[in-house]
């Protein structure tokens, strides 16, 4: 197994984690669905980062960048319309544990440079987005 296969195998972990998330989104309560949507964009971001490394294409990181920007936006839109922004320890801890566990090895493999700063930026955005959208006592807003 080559190193690029290793990265792709690592990408399989968050990808497979999407299967139970789909179940949650399809059958859960509104709260569960919103948590699921939040978790989806976070996991998708991680998959994309790992896959970019596995395919040896730094330009694929742009897709992860867009996920990290638009994912929380989508979650907040739903929160606004469903009027809940559920407190989710699952999302928070997935972000706080999963993102560093993904981004730091990637940074080591990339080596210092602009690409590394970009990776750190994407990681920071993913964490910030997830923490804000899974915060305690949050509400999407009363009316619009």
């Amino acid at each position, binding site marked *: 197994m080559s190193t690029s296969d290793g990265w792709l195998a690592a990408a399989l972990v968050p990808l497979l984690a999407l299967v139970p998330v789909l179940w949650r989104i399809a059958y859960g309560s509104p709260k569960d669905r919103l948590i699921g949507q939040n978790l989806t964009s976070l996991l998708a971001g991680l998959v994309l980062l790992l896959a970019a490394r596995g395919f040896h294409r730094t330009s694929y990181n742009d897709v992860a960048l867009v996920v990290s920007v638009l994912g929380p936006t989508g979650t907040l839109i739903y929160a606004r319309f469903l009027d809940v922004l559920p407190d989710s320890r699952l999302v928070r801890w997935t972000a706080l544990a999963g993102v560093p566990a993904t981004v730091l090895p990637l940074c080591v493999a990339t080596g210092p440079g602009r690409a590394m*700063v*970009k990776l750190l*930026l994407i990681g920071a955005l993913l964490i910030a987005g997830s923490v804000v959208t899974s915060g305690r006592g949050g509400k999407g807003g009363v009316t619009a």
Partner: protein
Amino acid sequence: MTAVLEVLVWWAALTGIWLVLISTVDPLELLVGSASALAAAMLARAGRRAVADR
């Protein structure tokens, strides 16, 4: 005065981020980057004001 300062800070930060996003630096890239950063900086200020005094 504060307005200029606010936009300037945003502009500097965003130009820095642009430089991180791109892969090769050349003059045209810098020009486009600083112009985009300026637009985004103005929007940042306009957005903050629109939210602050409604």
